[in-house]
């Protein structure tokens, strides 16, 4: 894919997004609204922080014993009659899915939301092999019809306005021109998707939680599309990253309470569907995918990023994400957690992402499983600099600054020159294309004397 070859330039993509001020504000407001709903839900549970701590503890324990839990899960799931597959990377995952589908002569698949299959680019792969994939989550279907990737992991079409959906449906589904009523448009989608559910020969779902103790999997949706997609066909393929595991069914309560509240501000997702083995006379295949996860597992600094339950709360709260849009990250998982996971996969391509962050720490405070997101972003900056992936100008600026700051005399001189220049140089020289600070902001009004000079001269008490 051509897009994979280019380097992601977040500042540039973000500036483009910001240029349409009205739209950028609309996007920011839409996501802030979700954040506020989440706050209300969190505040309604006095035990919220205890739940978060518990969830973090369970995840740390699971990730620390991942191999054992994976084996236990495989044993239990197999005992229930499911077939478990292991995929080292995206290519293996796609091949496994294709083989299963071809064996069953499948022509069309109904797929519910799965960020893992997005990460593996499963859709285009299957399409290349003559299999039609329909994303049955409304938001995902909208972006699929538009031929673009999701811009958010929970709200894939959050960047699209209802007028644009009306336009799209008019073109693709033949709804009335100019229709914008969400109810009408949803009805139309529903009608069309019902046909898909009836016609498809297989259902693919993601997995929110896989329970080692029971071998069961849990899929959370608000539209019930995961259930519908796998109810009629005999074949259900569930694709999951290996970090989706939890040890016991009893742990589920902790995560289900946190997930929906964090994701959309609901007390619980509308459907939490449990699959324990295949349906009678059906087949259930579970594909466990590594695709870079075990190398994150081996890294003390980033291991905790595997706790992620993909709730999207860090995106909703991120002041940069809200104002730059999911596509500016150039990856399946955008926002704070994406800016950690993507560089782990390809530090060169994603070097700008850990810098697309003001280090405000809101993501860390919002994360239901207590991932120290902003600290990991800072650590990524260190690793990117160490790998020599920092731009030449940034490196030079930091080296020069450090040289001056290590020498108090030179520092005082530099300060004096800076203050003198700010007071005396003409505006034309101070404000130009070489000064990105001054494009929209005034520079500080420089005083004649620094603090140190004034402190030394002040009358002693």
């Amino acid at each position, binding site marked *: 894919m051509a897009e994979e070859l280019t380097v992601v330039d*977040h*500042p540039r993509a*973000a*500036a483009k997004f*910001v240029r349409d001020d009205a739209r950028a*504000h609309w996007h*920011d407001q839409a996501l*802030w609204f979700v954040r506020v709903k989440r*706050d209300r839900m*969190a505040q309604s*549970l006095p035990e919220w922080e205890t739940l978060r701590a518990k969830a973090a503890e369970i995840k740390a324990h699971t990730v620390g014993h991942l191999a054992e839990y994976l084996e236990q899960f495989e044993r239990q799931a197999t005992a229930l009659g499911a077939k478990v597959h292991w995929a080292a990377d995206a290519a293996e995952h796609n091949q496994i899915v294709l083989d299963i589908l071809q064996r069953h002569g499948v022509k069309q698949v109904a797929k519910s939301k799965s960020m893992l299959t997005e990460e593996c680019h499963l859709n285009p792969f299957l399409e290349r092999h003559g299999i039609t994939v329909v994303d049955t989550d409304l938001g995902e279907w909208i972006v699929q019809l538009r031929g673009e990737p999701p811009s958010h992991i929970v709200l894939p079409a959050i960047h699209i306005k209802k007028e644009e959906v009306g336009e799209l449906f008019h073109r693709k589904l033949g709804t009335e021109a100019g229709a914008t009523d969400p109810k009408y448009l949803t009805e139309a989608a529903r009608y069309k998707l019902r046909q898909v559910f009836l016609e498809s020969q297989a259902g693919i779902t993601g997995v929110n939680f896989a329970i080692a103790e029971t071998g069961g999997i849990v899929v959370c949706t608000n539209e019930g599309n995961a259930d519908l997609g796998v109810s009629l066909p005999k074949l259900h393929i569930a694709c999951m990253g290996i970090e989706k595991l939890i040890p016991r069914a009893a742990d589920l309560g902790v995560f289900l309470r946190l997930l929906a509240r964090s994701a959309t501000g609901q007390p619980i997702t509308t459907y939490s569907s449990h699959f324990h083995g295949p349906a009678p006379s059906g087949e259930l295949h579970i594909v466990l995918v590594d695709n870079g996860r075990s190398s994150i597992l081996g890294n003390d600094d980033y291991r905790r990023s595997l706790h992620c339950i993909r709730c999207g709360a860090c995106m909703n709260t991120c*002041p*940069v994400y809200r*104002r*730059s849009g999911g596509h500016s990250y150039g990856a399946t998982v955008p926002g704070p957690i994406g800016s950690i996971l993507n560089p782990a996969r390809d530090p060169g391509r994603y070097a700008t992402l*850990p*810098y697309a*962050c*003001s*280090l*405000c*720490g*809101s993501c860390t*405070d919002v994360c239901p499983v207590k991932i120290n997101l*902003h600290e990991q972003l*800072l650590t990524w*900056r260190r*690793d*990117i*600099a*160490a790998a020599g992936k920092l731009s030449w100008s*940034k490196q030079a600026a*930091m*080296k020069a*600054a*450090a040289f001056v*700051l*290590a020498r*108090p005399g030179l*520092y005082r001189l530099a*300060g004096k020159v800076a*203050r003198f220049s700010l007071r005396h140089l003409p505006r034309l020289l101070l404000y130009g294309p070489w000064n*990105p*600070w001054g*494009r*929209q*902001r*005034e520079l*500080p009004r*420089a*005083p004649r*004397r*620094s*603090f*140190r*000079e*004034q*402190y*030394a001269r*002040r009358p002693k008490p």
Partner: protein
Amino acid sequence: MPRVGLFIPCYVDQFYPEVGLATVDLLHRYGCDTDYPTAQTCCGQPMANTGCVEQAAPLARRFVEIFAQYDYVVCPSGSCTAMVRHHYEEYFHGDATYARLRERVFELTEFLVDVLGVQRVEGSFPYRVGLHQSCHGLRELRLARSSETVGPAFNKTRQLLESLDGIEFAELTRPDECCGFGGTFAVNEEAVSCMMGLDRVHDHLQAGTQVLTSNDMSCLMHLDGLIRRQGQPIRVMHVAEILAGRAVEPLPKRHA
């Protein structure tokens, strides 16, 4: 009398000396003896936050050498305090001098409240004040409860300001959203940074803020830069200046 080493961030030293002087006045008012070690320059945060730990390391070492001698080290910046308290460990790896210093470095308002036990600040400030919670003070030093977390509400800075006669607070729609300064982020992601800043300014305008204040002059430098460029009727002052009883500068003519 505790001997306080003044940790004055480099940009405050150079561009906002009045903030340093207000800090000194406050510390004296509450019975501290201050000393300003002139060898200090910068804590190394700009380099560290860019990922240049090699450049930050010597500055961190200088800092600890210079400040190890004091009973307390006090700084009118949440961000620079957080740098020393939370981000120096990787340069010192359990070094005892640093470990001792770390426990004695405080942001100004937390020093007043937690160490000196100041309950009220005498004085009056008859203005509607918009308090900008700087992120590092909020989420790294925990000077207040952040809006994301659940638990009893507290706010050390606001608690001090509240005791001034006549003060009113502007209530924001987003009480602790980041202003978008973020160090090199401000120029590296200029577009998003300025949009974030302007959004904060507009929140303060709709809330009727007359004086915008914060524990961090760096956030205020960014916000003031936007405010002055746009000619908005808001004055910017550091918390130390308000607490020390400094006068509010009149607005430029056109707003009078």
